[in-house]
């Protein structure tokens, strides 16, 4: 438990949303690549929410690409949950 075997993606490019792609990673830990128009004000928070959500789902090894368009924490959490669920559907942990 802890690492994905397939990538999964959720979200759209609409404002207030975030596209989250969660993919398998070679090493332990969570690596997040983030673009966001509010990266200065919320960059830290967005990373924190993504990481916390992954950990709460039991994922401790992943590479995440996040393309944010001003999503609130609840939306970020939802997109991470869906991306992981889709990744699990494809191949499993």
């Amino acid at each position, binding site marked *: 438990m802890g690492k994905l075997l397939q990538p999964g993606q*959720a979200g759209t490019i609409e404002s207030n949303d975030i596209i989250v792609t969660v993919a398998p990673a070679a090493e332990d830990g969570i690596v997040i690549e983030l673009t966001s128009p509010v990266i200065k004000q919320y960059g830290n928070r967005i990373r924190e929410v993504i990481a916390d959500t992954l950990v709460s789902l039991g994922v401790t090894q992943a590479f995440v690409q996040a393309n944010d368009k001003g999503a609130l924490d*609840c*939306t970020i959490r939802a997109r991470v949950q869906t991306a992981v669920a889709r990744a699990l559907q494809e191949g499993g942990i």
Partner: protein
Amino acid sequence: MFAPGNNPGKLQNAGVYGADSVIFDLEDAVAITEKDAARHLVYNAIKSINYPCEVAVRINHIQTPFGRDDLRVVLPAKPDLIRLPKAESAEEIRMIDEIISQAELDNGFEPGSIKIGAAIETAIGLRQAYEIATASKRMTFLAIGGEDFVADLKTSRSKEGRELFVPRSELLLAARAAGIQAIDSVFSDVNDEEGFIEEALMIKGLGFDGKSVINPRQVRLVHKVFEPTEKEIAQAKRILAAYQEALDKKSGVIALDGKMIDGPIVTRAERVLAYAAALKR
């Protein structure tokens, strides 16, 4: 007011427009490929955001692959009400009731705190309206789904709504017999304000308690239609005052302006004042 469950922007702003209830839609508004994403969005929105009104979720029908997953994901967020589309039998309501009861237990929610509302959208459903309305103590309203109903009747919607006259009346009768509310259907032409008001006035006259809307602008219109006028409020106060006076004096017959005031008139007066109070922001 309906808000599509797969739209983060609309979910986060849904509480701003003064609707008495927001309905987060997992059904018609959401493409099949996004059903999974929508229920996550709705769950997280309900958990994190403080909505100033009732929060309802329209799940997919319990007999679709999605309905049960919707309930599984969304119930832990404690929505106020689950709305079932295309209800056709009391059994469907009982199934949902059971699932909700289990979720209330698992999550430590007060038993019975999550309600159910059902939309009648077919002739079969209408035939079972009373049974559906009484299938569970959680049942709070019957709603009529206009577009789908009309399709089921194999006709089209007209401005005067002749084709929905009997279904609306029957639904209202069933709701009243069961002691629950009756909610009218959505009006899809967002730009036709006049037509909307006409329809709202008509269903108010029939006795409906409210109307579902799909656009924030329509919220205001419903409230305007259902808002008692100054005259009506004044009259209601007079009626209740006369009734109270009669009670105090223990007199047998109550009259105001030469007319008898009996139970139904008092109830109606109370209803007018209740509406007026509810509309005061």
